[in-house]
């Protein structure tokens, strides 16, 4: 048996390392590492990029020790539902342990990407001082830090190429943090500060942009007025990705023509976003570059259908469109006829709570786009009504869907024509779209839809369920099917203990399971935790009933987060979280 693998030892390690360097996907490298001990050792020692989907799945010190040559790390923290305030703010996801371990063991780290982590200013300070060759800092949906921390990064990271703060919550303690980039600093390629709520000094930004001749991505925050945008564009005509600031000003024909020519001057512009408070007078300034755009994000643009259509219908090469439901069905029909290369569409609700003046965006818009855009594979759609027939049509038109997230705003909404649940519609989606990787359900749904999903969604990796199902069988269908399921998040469904306990081993094949406002009891959690030592079963009860250890087995669990881990129970749980 040993003889069969002797060929692995025929080549020196460096040769295998070189071979492995052509394996770009983590999955492939993982597979290579499982072939034999030699390959495991060589692969591990030469791995340059590591992805940790759950920061608590492995101890930082262990990860750093196992992969000593890492140059780029991606670490994710809080569960996805934290985006919607379902996770207590002190739940965890702190970055300290990781940053400390990395500072010790990865001095040559160049790229660090955190998502939904709590990153303190101390962490940023440590990052700024520890990695001589630091190039990329990406903090997506993070919080816990302030502009003082950013000042430390700006001041110390001499080779910084990318600073991305997408959708993070940043406290503004240091007003002119951008001025901390020293004069000789010229390496910036991408800067995304769109999430900052405070004023950004446009003059300092201008000086920074002027000396960074390689800047390709610049996403401003809403405080940068239109007048200053002109100056920035003039200094960075090589920009490919622009996020504007506030897109309105007092009527001024001179400003308009200056803006228009500045935009025309950016011949490489492929991606546009921003457009806060857009004024009708200035939107036409972007018409000239629409044809070159591949990505357009208008999800802050509170303008009506006609203006939206005027822009979008010019974007013949669009691959990605984010827009509000103000686009309405007729606007989506225009998208379907103009944007034949469209791959991803996201339609957000302009008025998610009141619906005082209902917007004319219905299932028709979705159907139109599914019919007209043959390359459409990713959809996020908020609307107020749906029919099974529409979903069937979408399924028939677009079997190439990989991501389908439908949010019908009112829970338990039926097919408004037949008054039936939307089981058949969603079943058609999973049966037709064989490559579906991500699915979010909404509307009135019975256990039938889960039967279809469990049976047909063979490549599904992430499933989000809310206000759906009849009982335990629904969850059982999912957990006993869906071979490739990684993340399951459920809220307000009548799923109880039985399916969890019956499918306990399934949970170890997944990254995580979130269940809130369901029918799970503490007793089941205890049993699960006992049976599955490589799972952390976290019970979150915020109503302060006293220590969970003292509660009886039939105590209902408000929120439950189960994830696989080799690190054992974590030590940083707050009061409301208890690892069973």
């Amino acid at each position, binding site marked *: 048996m040993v003889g069969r693998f002797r060929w692995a030892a025929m080549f020196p390690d460096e040769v295998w390392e070189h071979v492995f360097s052509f394996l770009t996907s983590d999955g492939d490298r993982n597979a290579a590492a499982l072939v034999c001990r030699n390959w495991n050792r060589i692969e591990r020692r030469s791995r340059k990029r590591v992805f940790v989907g759950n920061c608590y799945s492995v101890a930082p010190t262990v990860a750093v020790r196992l992969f000593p040559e890492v140059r780029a790390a991606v670490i994710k923290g809080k569960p996805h539902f934290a985006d919607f*305030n379902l996770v207590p703010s002190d739940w965890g996801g702190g970055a300290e342990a990781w940053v400390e371990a990395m500072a010790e063991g990865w001095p040559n780290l160049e790229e660090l990407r955190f998502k939904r982590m709590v990153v303190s200013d101390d962490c940023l300070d440590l990052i700024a001082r520890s990695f001589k060759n630091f190039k990329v800092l990406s903090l997506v949906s993070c919080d816990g830090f302030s502009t003082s921390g950013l000042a430390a990064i700006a001041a110390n990271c001499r080779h910084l190429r990318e600073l991305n703060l997408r959708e993070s919550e940043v406290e503004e303690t240091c007003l002119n943090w951008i001025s901390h980039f020293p004069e000789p600093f010229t390496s910036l390629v991408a800067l995304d500060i769109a999430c900052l709520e405070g004023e950004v000094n446009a003059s300092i930004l201008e000086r920074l942009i002027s000396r960074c001749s390689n800047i390709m991505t610049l996403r401003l925050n809403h405080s940068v007025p239109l007048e200053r945008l002109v100056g920035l564009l003039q200094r960075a005509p090589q920009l490919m990705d622009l996020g504007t600031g506030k897109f309105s000003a007092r009527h001024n024909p001179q400003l308009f023509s200056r803006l228009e020519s500045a935009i025309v001057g950016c011949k490489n512009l492929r991606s546009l976003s921003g457009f806060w408070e857009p004024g009708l007078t200035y939107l036409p300034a972007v018409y000239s570059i629409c044809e070159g755009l591949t990505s357009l994000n208008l999800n802050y643009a509170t303008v009506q259908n006609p203006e939206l259509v005027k822009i979008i219908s010019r974007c013949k090469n669009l691959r990605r469109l984010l827009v509000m439901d103000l686009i309405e069905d007729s606007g989506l029909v225009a998208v379907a006829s103009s944007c034949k290369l469209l791959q991803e569409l996201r339609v957000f609700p302009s008025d998610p709570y009141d619906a005082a003046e209902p917007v004319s965006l219905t299932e028709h818009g979705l159907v139109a786009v599914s019919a007209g855009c043959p390359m459409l594979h990713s959809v996020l759609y908020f609307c107020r009504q749906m029919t099974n027939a529409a979903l069937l049509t979408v399924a028939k038109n677009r079997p190439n869907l990989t991501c389908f997230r439908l949010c019908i705003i009112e*829970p*338990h909404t039926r097919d408004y024509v037949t008054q039936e649940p939307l089981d058949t519609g969603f079943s058609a989606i999973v049966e037709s779209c064989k490559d579906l990787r991500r699915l979010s359900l909404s509307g009135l749904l019975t256990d039938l839809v889960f039967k279809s999903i469990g049976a047909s969604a063979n490549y599904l990796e992430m499933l989000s369920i809310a206000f759906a199902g009849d009982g335990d069988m629904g969850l059982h269908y999912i957990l006993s099917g869906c071979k490739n399921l990684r993340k399951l998040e459920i809220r307000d469904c009548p799923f109880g203990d039985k399916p969890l306990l019956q499918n306990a081993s399934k949970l170890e094949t997944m990254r995580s399971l979130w269940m809130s406002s369901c029918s799970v009891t503490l*007793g089941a959690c205890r049993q699960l935790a006992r049976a599955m030592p490589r799972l952390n079963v976290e019970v979150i009860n915020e109503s302060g009933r006293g220590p969970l250890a003292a509660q009886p087995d039939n105590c209902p669990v408000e929120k439950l987060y189960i994830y696989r881990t080799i690190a054992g129970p974590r030590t940083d749980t707050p009061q409301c979280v208890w690892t069973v």
Partner: protein
Amino acid sequence: MASYVEDTELRLGLPGSDAPAARGSKRSLPDQDDEAGDESCCRNGGSASAAKAQVVGWPPIRTYRKNSFQAMKTETTTVEPEASGLYVKVSMDGAPYLRKIDLKVYKGYMELKEALDSMFKCFSQGELSRKEGCNGSEYVISYEDKDGDLMLVGDVPWDMFTSSCKRLRIMKESEARGLEFRQ
């Protein structure tokens, strides 16, 4: 080791312990649904009140988007009535009540200062003054801007001041000294 099945059988719980009621949304059978007539009825898990109660975290949109949308809504509604004036509250340390003034009425800082002088004369011994020329005067005018920061009046151009001022505060000079050194 009690089996899980026994644990969830109906039994008398201890007083104060929650009954194992299903916390998930208990859907009634479709034909008993009276939802068709009442579109605003929104059932959330465990809650008895089915009125227009806003469910936590639903619809699933990010907070920043919610905030920025609400900000946009209020911006659009306050930008329109520009003709009706820019009223801000004015408080003075030690005064029993506040006043309200319309910033649009004044053309500059001098006029504002004079107006505040006459308004609050009865409460103060000396004249109100700006940060320069503090001899003999006891008070300093400060304001709270859009970001919630306390700022000294007079630093920025008048137009910028009126667009960012949310309220005025007349403070004792001794308290105000700290403001000058704030970044």
